[in-house]
């Protein structure tokens, strides 16, 4: 498959670009909700519009009422989300949770997918335990209890945790903390007793929770897939999530870069447009190259994932790491080249820096994925 968008994908990109620029703009969404100290960190009305656009069900099979598209298409939406810093539960609901539900039975799909597709339901995923992403270790335990399970433990960095209708929780049903096997995924409804959220606002104004499961009783039908068979689903979720976050990151990088290049063409100092200074030109040109490289590897990883390739795992980590590096460069250069006003809350460039930081950390930072690349490559 050529590494560019086919005609259908280009059409989707056009409509996503237009929609997000109009409805999902920084002014209309991110600043709006942030300045009102919104406890969700995003707008439910916009989420319903996502549903109307069909975005919510991009990765859901047609048989289940979705569009049955792939990660290239999901990435198209995510890149525009990134470019406009649009706050939404798309990544957690339509990518991560949707990937989990793909592995569930008809019953659980029927329970949750219609709400997702309509943009009425918000889903979260609870994977991390502790401040760094280490999905190899799962300590949260689900013990047999009656004909169901009893969930005990704590999850961190649960994006939209307090706003979600259902949380996909990775818990251990057997084995020791570091064992690959023995993981089961549960769909925990928001009204589950003994589940509590400590919601905190993050640097990018999104909301995340430390979520406690203090003996949460779950029916057997809360299990997604098979008992003890969750690791494979979790891996699928992580691959999808990394590639999705990387696509969003390319949007963040591109948005920050475009703002900055525009600024270089407007701001004058020493009687010249600052974009005339060769030192800044070379830095901008280097940045452009890095962003283009990041953009390319994301498409590559998306296609590998859509093609169910063995290389998708490696390339999902490569993509996540590369985007993190390129977007980090984009926002740092962006803020520096904007000079003093880049430091003010009034200008948007700082918002890109904040989002990049949170997104880079989500599902593993560049250092984590570099280690993964080394391990997967056998060194």
């Amino acid at each position, binding site marked *: 498959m050529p590494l560019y968008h086919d005609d259908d994908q280009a059409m989707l990109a056009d409509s996503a670009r237009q929609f997000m620029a109009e409805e999902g703009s920084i002014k209309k969404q991110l600043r709006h909700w942030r300045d009102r100290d919104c406890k969700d960190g995003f707008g439910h009305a916009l989420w319903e519009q996502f549903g109307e656009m069909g975005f919510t069900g991009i990765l859901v099979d047609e048989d289940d009422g979705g569009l049955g598209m792939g990660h290239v298409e999901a990435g198209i939406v995510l890149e525009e989300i990134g470019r406009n810093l649009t706050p939404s539960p798309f990544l957690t609901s339509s990518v991560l949770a949707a990937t989990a539900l793909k592995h569930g039975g008809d019953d659980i799909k029927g329970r949750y997918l219609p709400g997702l597709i309509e943009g009425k339901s918000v889903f979260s995923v609870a994977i991390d335990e502790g*401040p760094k992403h280490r999905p190899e270790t799962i300590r949260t335990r689900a013990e047999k209890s009656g004909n169901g399970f009893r969930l005990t433990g704590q999850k961190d960095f649960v994006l939209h945790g307090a706003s979600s209708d259902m949380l996909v929780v990775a818990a251990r049903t057997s084995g020791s903390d570091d064992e690959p096997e023995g993981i089961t995924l549960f769909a925990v409804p928001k009204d589950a007793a003994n589940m509590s959220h400590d919601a905190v606002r993050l640097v990018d104004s999104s909301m995340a929770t430390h979520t406690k499961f203090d003996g949460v009783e779950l029916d057997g039908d809360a299990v997604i897939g098979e008992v003890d068979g969750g690791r494979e689903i979790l891996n699928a979720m992580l691959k999808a999530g990394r590639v999705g976050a990387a696509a969003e990151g390319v949007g963040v990088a591109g948005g920050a870069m475009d703002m900055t290049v525009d600024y270089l063409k407007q701001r004058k*100092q020493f009687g010249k447009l600052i974009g005339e200074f060769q030192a800044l030109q070379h830095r901008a040109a280097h940045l452009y190259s890095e962003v283009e490289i990041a953009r390319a590897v994301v498409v590559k990883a998306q296609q590998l994932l859509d093609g169910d390739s063995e290389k998708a795992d490696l390339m999902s980590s490569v993509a996540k790491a590369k985007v993190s590096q390129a977007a980090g460069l984009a926002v*740092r250069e962006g803020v*520096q080249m904007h*000079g*003093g006003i880049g*430091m003010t809350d*009034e200008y948007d460039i*700082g918002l890109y820096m904040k989002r990049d930081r949170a997104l880079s950390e989500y599902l593993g930072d560049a250092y984590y994925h570099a280690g993964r690349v080394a391990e997967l490559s056998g060194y």
Partner: protein
Amino acid sequence: MAEQLESFRKETRDWLEANCPPEMRQPVRDEGDVYWGGRNATFKNDAQKQWFEACRDKGYTVPDWPKEYGGAGLSPAEAKVLRQEMAAINARPPLSSFGIWMLGPALLHFGTEGQKQRFLNEIARGEIRWCQGYSEPGSGSDLVSMQTFGEDKGDHWVVNGQKIWTSYADEADWIFCLVRTDKDDKYKGITFMLFDMASDGVSTKPIKLISGNSPFCETFMDDVKVPKSYGEDVPGYVGEINRGWDVAKYLLGHEREMISATGGGDRATSLGAATSRQGELDPVLRAQMALFDIDALSFTAMSEKFMDELKAGKGHPAQPNMLKYAGTELNKRRNELMMSAGGSTALEWESEETSGGKTARGWLRTKANSIEGGTSEVMLNVIAKRILELPGA
């Protein structure tokens, strides 16, 4: 000589023991712990008041200024002893002010006797709080292109324009401010004026930063009357009329030294050692930490070397530029790594656990380091021109 110093050290130790209250022997935790002085100043508690007054009376708010201007007239060696002894007991600075750091040095160098008598004493006694009016929205790195204009009306100017990045303008009593007084000469057309922030036509607006609320303000001047004289031998400007750029350059050099002196963050500690206490480091992050620590420890050595050379009169005038460039870039990198080590906890913006997002806000605040006091790009230009003597524009 050495004996005299030792006896001074003994005296100082005794004096500090007697005069520095225990509450003032703790590191400054937040803005509230800093005493800035000024017309509207209030003390946070009795200890702060007691400590300030003891220092003021001893001349220790500005220990190396001459006694007649409110200082203690200490020699550089004595001043160093005092700093060491204060550091030894963690004594807080009794008074912080841009008057001490910025205007004072300018007046000591360029001021008239009358200006020194009045303004230095006011500063030393914490009576007047000053702020600085340099940058303008259109004039950042290219400071000399500033447009705020003072029309000459004989015994006064009428000033119109806008300044930006005036720290604490909303709490300051007076401002030292660069004003264009001759539109025909870029460099020799600026006057370094002094005026009361309570003057008619002065207004301020705080600037919110990406890291949150900040001391920075925009300051607007709308037909502000600035007298050319505040009395005998007390001109309303420093240096000569139209030669304020000389004063400004002198102070910019001073500011860069100050900023570079604090660059690189807390140099005594290894970043890797500090962050690894939060949990096991990822191996790739550990590698980056080690490479950072190498750069940071090396930078500290250069910083020390320059200070030694400066004291010995061996310093190159462009060295502060290098310190500022390398120090601020390093500090940004340090904070990036701290964010990485902190993971999702470090992302928290308002939580109690992070004292209201201290790590994240600190990280964002460091991004200004390579802009304020001269951008990294300007520093590199200066190094290329002044040290390497590379040709052309």
